[in-house]
């Protein structure tokens, strides 16, 4: 998950002019905040690349893809980091990405990863997060959530990867009855935000009882804030998985540097920073393992995920189904 410390997500541009090559990486808001993985990864990569690594935040995950489509081959981006498995096929269809060229990457994912264009950098399970001091008995399923009078804040699936994840999660659980479920939940949705940062911010400000986030979100409060009041509600329906991915842009003028970055992405220098800055599970377990506190998190018994072209086949219809109900 992304660091809950919210920030506008503007990259401070290093003004120093130099002959160094610049590697431009498009990513999402919370990745580049002061407390997110951005600063430490930038520092560690620059130590070994003799280059200038520049993160550009373009909103939430799904917006990265829209942005890339708008810019086409004129894009400045060399690498795109922060799409997820649900958008991989759509991203592939843009023909804007190049193959990563890494043969059988060493990964520690709960599923097998086969994709010649995108590499995972972390993963997690979506979950509704609540405050134990305000919600005594959290719902144990989607049914219980809809039957309760708890208010929730969710993200727009068109701009946000968690928002898209939820739409697919509901689809995976309810299938053809998904629209019916959205209808029953509709009254409890306080608002639909553009991105994860906005939604989590609203939840922390007390604007809603629950927020769509990750099972790993409580670890942030526990480790960084020494606060054990936040928890993820385990759903007996199972939890939808997110695998966050990165890819090399075909039109890059720095292909070698881009390859170097993707290689670096699966080393300890990058992966070791993920658990306590992005608050997700690392795609490749670093030597030091997971930090203390992660053992307290809920581990779903049942993981749900659409892989390959499955998500792409149902994405547009699932979103329109949600949008039709949510606009009423």
């Amino acid at each position, binding site marked *: 998950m992304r660091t809950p410390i919210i920030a506008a997500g503007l990259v401070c541009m290093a003004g120093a002019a130099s002959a160094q090559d610049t590697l431009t990486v498009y990513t999402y808001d919370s990745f580049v905040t002061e407390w997110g993985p951005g600063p430490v990864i930038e520092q560690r990569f620059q130590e070994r690349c003799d280059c200038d690594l520049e993160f550009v935040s373009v909103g939430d995950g799904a917006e990265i893809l829209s942005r890339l489509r708008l810019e086409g081959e004129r894009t400045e981006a060399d690498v795109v980091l922060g799409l997820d498995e649900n958008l991989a096929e759509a991203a592939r269809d843009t023909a804007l990405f190049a193959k990563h060229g890494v043969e059988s990457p060493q990964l520690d994912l709960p599923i097998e990863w086969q994709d010649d264009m995108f590499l995972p950098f972390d993963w997690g399970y979506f979950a509704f997060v609540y405050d134990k001091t305000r919600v005594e008995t959290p719902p144990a399923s989607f049914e219980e959530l809809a039957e309760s009078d708890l208010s929730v804040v969710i993200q727009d699936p068109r701009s946000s990867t968690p928002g898209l994840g939820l739409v697919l999660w509901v689809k995976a659980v309810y299938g053809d009855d998904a629209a019916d479920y959205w209808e029953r939940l509709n009254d409890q949705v306080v608002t639909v935000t553009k991105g994860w940062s906005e939604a989590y911010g609203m939840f922390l*400000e007390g604007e809603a009882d629950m927020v769509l986030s990750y099972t790993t979100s409580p670890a942030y409060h526990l480790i960084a804030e020494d606060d054990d009041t936040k928890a993820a509600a385990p759903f007996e329906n199972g939890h939808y998985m997110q695998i966050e991915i990165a890819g090399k842009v075909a039109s890059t003028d720095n292909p070698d540097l881009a390859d170097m970055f993707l290689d670096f992405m699966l080393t300890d220098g990058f992966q070791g920073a993920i658990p306590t800055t992005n608050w997700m599970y690392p795609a490749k377990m670093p030597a030091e393992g997971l930090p203390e506190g992660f053992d307290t998190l809920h581990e779903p018994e049942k993981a749900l995920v659409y892989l390959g072209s499955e998500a792409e086949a149902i994405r547009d219809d699932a979103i329109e189904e949600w949008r039709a109900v949510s606009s009423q």
Partner: protein
Amino acid sequence: MARGLFSVTRTTGAGATALALVLFLALGTLVAVALRAEGAGAFTVADLAALRFTLVQATLSAALSIALAIPVGRALARRSFPGRGVLVMLLGAPFILPVIVAVFGLISVFGRSGLVSQALLALGLEPISIYGFHGVVLAHVFFNLPLATRLVLQGWLAIPAERFRLAASLGFTARDIARQLERPMLREVLPGAFLVIFLLCLTSFAVALALGGGPRATTIELAIYQAFRLDFDLGKAALLALVQFALGAAVALIALRVALPPGFGAGLDRAVSRWDANTPMLRALDAALITLATLFLVLPMTMIAVDGLPALATLPASVFTATARSLGVALASVILTLALALPIAAWSVKSGSRLVEGVGTLTIAASPLVIGTGLFIILFPITDPFALALPVTALVNAVMSLPFALRALVPALGQVEADFGRLADGLGMTGTARLRHLWLPRLARPLGFTAGLSAALSMGDLGVIALFASPDAPTLPLQIYRLLSAYRMDDAAGAALILLVTSLALFWVFDKGGRVNADA
């Protein structure tokens, strides 16, 4: 009247060029959009919901603004008190107030942790939320209640004082006066006022973007933005843009048939003696109404100063670079506005054609997002539209303030030509000489006002820039929106204060500048 052929053709040429550019932006972009919309799928349920939301919120916003403006306008018309002049002047302020600044002020008053919610919590009640339908309507009433009040107040003050004196001598009660004098006036003023406000709310983008809260509260303008930025569905964006244009054009046409109240009236500074309203109860009622309306207007603005001042010292550098960027856009927009408005005004006066001014005013019904979408479709095959974000914003802003510029310049230039035109012709003063020695000095006042207005409107604009902005080069309003949605309220407050002060200062400097020259 014999005028040099040279001067006529030059005026006509410049005017026609400027007008052609306006026509291209208002209608040419629409053609680009329409061609692109061909392949678009049908209207979905959610698009229909956006259309319905747009119409319902605009109707309710306009109705509420008017309904509240009637008692407040009446109170202002029949009472005189210290500060009344300032209050009436203040009613003009929301017009140049950046939308995003007002949104911030409204959140500080009506938001979950705002003043009202805190008061409710202290009383043991539930706090209120500002996001969604009611938030959008609240913000629209905040912007348009002052406008409605001014229009209604003008209506009241247009009733000759003698009528009220006669009514008093005939022993009319307040109810008789309402029936004989006030209601006929309101019947004349209200339809026009309603339509103007309805039109303004119809194209609302920034308010819905910041306070909308998801698919349930999406205007067509916002849906265009989403189709464009989120779905990258240019066909859908184009289809929605056509719907938006049709709506705007339809309402504008109806508005033209209904007598529109004049926008800038004079003589609002005196209250009429009203013997009928001298009862203690009516006095208390009017005092309460005026106090409430003033609080509603002033409180959000005060909160920006209160919240913003402490944050100024620690503002991130990005806010200041955004400010510089916005200042550049605003100044460029001023130059473009004048470069468009003067030739069109000159042509309009020389040809005596209402049509010329009418075409120049066309953009009042146009939507900046439709123009922006069209420009994007046209520019994309040629060049990188994102590299042109700031110039495009300045140009669109200039075209959007053109109707107000023409409204100020055309009558003034007509007067100058009527007074000095023959003399200048006699002296053979044409072309640049006429511009420099006759028009510019004589028009200093309306020019200063126009420049101030377009600078302030452009400085605070959050519309087309949202379509085009690069992630790392936002204008100040866009930066405030990003801070707001990231819940960085302190920084947002500081930035909002900077934007508020800059916008007002820009207006003041230009407007004042025009006056100084005029007196010299």
